[in-house]
């Protein structure tokens, strides 16, 4: 088995040149940061106030993706076409980065894509390793991301699906009926990010107390630490300290 095929490890030399790794200024802008040391409201004496840093995530890749990535993408597109869908409408974006393949899926099509990936004999992603939420407050209109990792034991492959939802309408269809293992994972993501998984059998808080206010792992939710007192000194909570940003 090649290092490429397990999605784990570096590109093999012959394929390395054909896999476009997106760096530099071609990626997808998720945020623009100003200044440093957390000085935001004037009075910056650090000299770093004029610093502007654009945060770019790896952007869309172009064919060929390299290795088995093309095979999976072809099969998925073919299977979607058979179901009467236009692949370009379903797969918004395909990212190949660091030897991992990511499909950005339009959220309304997620259950169908997941079912196809699970059932198509050439794809067979039988195991879902759950959903991880990520909050990008700077990415207007698609602040909340739900990231799924699907593992195929048959073909020994791993891919990632990513769907987004705006803060104003935090709804993503649930895929519990395709992957029952996502039951608790979706509850966890709801608990921490407020992403509502439509169609989940019992979407309630799972780790936080039932009456908790807010969604603690969003970026706009404070860490919630208290200042620590020492003899003659007080150290603010980690999120209140000056920091390199």
């Amino acid at each position, binding site marked *: 088995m090649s290092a490429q095929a397990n999605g784990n490890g570096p590109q093999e030399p012959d394929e390395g040149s054909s896999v476009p790794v997106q760096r530099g200024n071609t990626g997808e802008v998720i945020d623009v940061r100003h200044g440093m040391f957390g000085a935001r409201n004037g009075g910056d004496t650090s000299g770093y106030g004029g610093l502007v840093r654009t945060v770019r995530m790896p952007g869309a890749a172009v064919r060929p993706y390299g290795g088995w990535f093309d095979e999976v993408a072809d099969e998925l597109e073919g299977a979607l076409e058979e179901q009467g869908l236009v692949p370009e409408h379903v797969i918004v974006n395909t990212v190949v980065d660091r030897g991992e393949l990511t499909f950005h899926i339009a959220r309304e099509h997620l259950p169908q894509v997941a079912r196809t990936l699970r059932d198509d004999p050439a794809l067979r992603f039988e195991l879902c390793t759950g959903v991880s939420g990520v909050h990008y407050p700077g990415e207007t209109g698609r602040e909340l991301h739900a990231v799924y990792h699907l593992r195929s034991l048959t073909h020994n492959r791993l891919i990632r699906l990513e769907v987004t939802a705006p803060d104003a309408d935090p709804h993503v269809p649930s895929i519990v009926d395709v992957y029952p293992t996502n039951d608790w994972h979706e509850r966890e993501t709801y608990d921490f990010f407020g992403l509502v998984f439509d169609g989940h059998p019992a979407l309630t808080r799972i780790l936080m107390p039932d009456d*908790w206010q807010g969604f*603690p792992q969003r970026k706009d939710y404070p*860490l919630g630490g208290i200042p*620590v*007192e*020492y*003899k003659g*000194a007080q150290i603010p909570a980690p999120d209140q300290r000056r920091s390199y940003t």
Partner: protein
Amino acid sequence: MGLEEKLPSGFLLTTVEKAAGLARKSSMFPATFGLACCAIEMMTTGAGRYDLARFGMEVFRGSPRQADLMIVAGRVSQKMAPVLRQVYDQMPNPKWVISMGVCASSGGMFNNYAIVQGVDHVVPVDIYLPGCPPRPEMLLDAILKLHEKVKNTKLGVNQKEAAREAEEAAMKALPTIEMKGLLR
């Protein structure tokens, strides 16, 4: 000297206070309140190598109603705090609490939304045991120190007096931030 001289052999005289203290110290029943990493070290303390049985404490009671020592071993989350208090309330008096590990004592490295910053917000604590997690030897040391404290517990009027003195001392104590000197 006094009355002792006139007693037949085989008798010892002591105060009720001391006898009660000795009895309480020698038969302590810890409640199982394992939460996180420290719970594993607490179980290790009960197992072969460290052998808590040497101090007559190897029987961890599953029911708080049969226990008089609660070892809060691990981080106490906001969700666990009401449960912790309920278990404490179910224990019969007199009862003691050891806060095992920095997480239970002060929140430790988890200074965040989820963890109660010190179990003393919820129950009164007799011994704070630092460490992340404390070694079994440290837990044994804490238990022995608690034994010493239990042995010298006052009763009746003396107890009230001791409680009043302790409270006065606490009221007069300097807040940490106003203390001067090295961090120790």
